[in-house]
Each structure stands twice: as C-alpha cells, then as structure tokens.
C-alpha cells in the first residue's frame, strides 16, 4: 500500500469537508505510521471498510475540538463546559463519515470498490485501543486553530475478497 496515496487522499478529503461544511481550516501536519493506534482519550469515531482491501478509518480529537466542530457544523453553541452531548458525538460521527467516505471514494480508483460501515463514536478517558488488522495505521494529523485532529487509516488486501456487508464489522475493538 502506497502510504503517500493514503495521506494525499486523507488530506484532500479532510480539507474539503472542513472548507465546505465547517468553514474552517485543517492544516496538515507530518504523517507517520504506527502498529497500534495510540488513542486513549477524547472523542473517537470508527468506520469499517471492506472489499478487496479491508480495514478501518478512525477520526479522533479532544472534547474541546469536538464541541467546536459540532458548533460550526450545526451553527449552534456546544460549549465544553456543558459536556460532550449526543449532538456533539453525532456531529463528529458525521464528519468522520464524510472524511472517511471521501477517502474511500478517492482510494477506490486505485484499490477497487469498498463498502463502508455506519460510524461508531466513543467518548472517554484512559481507554486502550487494539487492532487485529494486518498492517500499519497511517496517521495524518491536522492543526485546527490550535487543536489537533488525527485521521487514521489501516488497509490491507483481503486474502479472499469477501462480498460487501453492511454494518460495523471492523477488526478493531476498544476496551473502555
């Protein structure tokens, strides 16, 4: 898997979502790879991908940024002082859906058709993330007006191309 291809797709998709839906800027930082997703706090949205290539996408940020993104997306005031509400989590899930969905659209040109699950979003502290997926996670961080947003993607060729199924079936889990 060409890591540059993934980073280019993630950057293009994230910046398009930010400029079109959030009227905000997401400045890409230096990407890197990791074996295990290093995410243990904050708001995390997961989306499973399946097809000839299979894996998952993940978008994570602080509660502060989650509230800010929800406020910009929904044009309402979601203050962190009032807590991370269901509306905030739903907004982050939809932003992840648009980002990972558009990454998928861009990668499909090279990798063939993929199905995408409905997002699952988690908010908490001190959780542990593990993956049984083969391959590395490519992490593309962004600076969003001083707050950090991270988009992770892990894709590996499927040994036997399975028919696309709908629903969350990522090979990942989060221990809370």
């Amino acid at each position: 898997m060409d890591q540059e291809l993934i980073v280019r797709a993630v950057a293009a998709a994230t910046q398009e979502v930010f400029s079109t839906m959030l009227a905000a800027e997401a400045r890409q930082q230096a990407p890197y790879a990791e074996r295990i997703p290093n995410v243990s706090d904050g708001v995390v949205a997961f989306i499973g991908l399946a097809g000839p290539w299979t894996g998952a996408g993940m978008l994570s940020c602080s509660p502060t940024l989650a509230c800010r993104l929800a406020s910009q997306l929904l044009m309402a005031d979601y203050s962190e002082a009032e807590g991370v509400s269901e509306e905030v989590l739903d907004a982050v899930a939809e932003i992840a859906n648009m980002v990972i969905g558009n990454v998928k659209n861009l990668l499909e040109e090279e990798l063939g058709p993929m199905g995408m699950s409905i997002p699952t979003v988690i908010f908490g502290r001190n959780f542990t993330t593990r993956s049984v997926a083969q391959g590395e996670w490519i992490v593309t961080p962004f600076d969003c007006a001083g707050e950090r947003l991270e988009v992770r993607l892990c894709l590996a060729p499927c040994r036997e191309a399975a028919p696309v199924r709908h629903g969350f079936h990522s090979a990942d889990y989060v221990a809370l």
Partner: protein
Amino acid sequence: MPLDVLIVDDSAAIRKILQRVLRQAEVGVREVYEASDGLEALEALKKHKVHLVLADVNMPNMNGMQLLAHLKSTAEWQQLPVIMVTTEGSQSKVMEAVQLGAAGYIRKPFSAEQIKDKVSSLF
C-alpha cells in the same frame, strides 16, 4: 408551490443541516419531515404527502437505494422526486441511483448552493 419535504438520514446532524439549508434557500419550503432510515421514511410517507425526498444511501434497516427502488415500484410514489445526498461517490452508485430513477445525486460534503440549485431545478 409550497414544498413539503422529507429528509431521510440516520445522522441527526445532517437532518438538521439539510432542514436549515432548505429553509434558508428560499425555494418555498413549507413543511419538513424527518426519518432516520428507509422504513421510517415509508411510515412518514403514509402519514404525510410530500413533494420531495432527500435520502442518504448508507442507513440501517432499509438503505437509501432500497427506499428509492421501493418508491419507484409503487404507483403512489412513482412520480415523487428523490434526491440522493450521500458520501457514496463511486460511479457505480451514481449509475445505480440514476437507473432506479433518482432525480439527483449530491455528494457529501455539500454546499447550500448545491442543494438550492438542485431543488430549484425540479420545481
């Protein structure tokens, strides 16, 4: 003509955004109803006569393509325009929607102008 619209999306955030966009678009929207999947949409359509449906593709229970196929195969709703609003941007999905009879296909992320232009072109 005052427009009554049904928005079908499993994301409450997207339903809220589309509702706001429609109301600000000055396309004559009167009532906006909401459903979170295709099955809920069919229930809503039995209760309310609408002029337009905006539907996501990836949804639980009954997805947007299944909803579109059902509407186009039912005499009562055959002429009802359905615009798909979705992250699914592959050519095969667009073609599938067109073949099933979608009146439009708007990819997320979308601008308010895209929604306004598409709705205006239909009415």
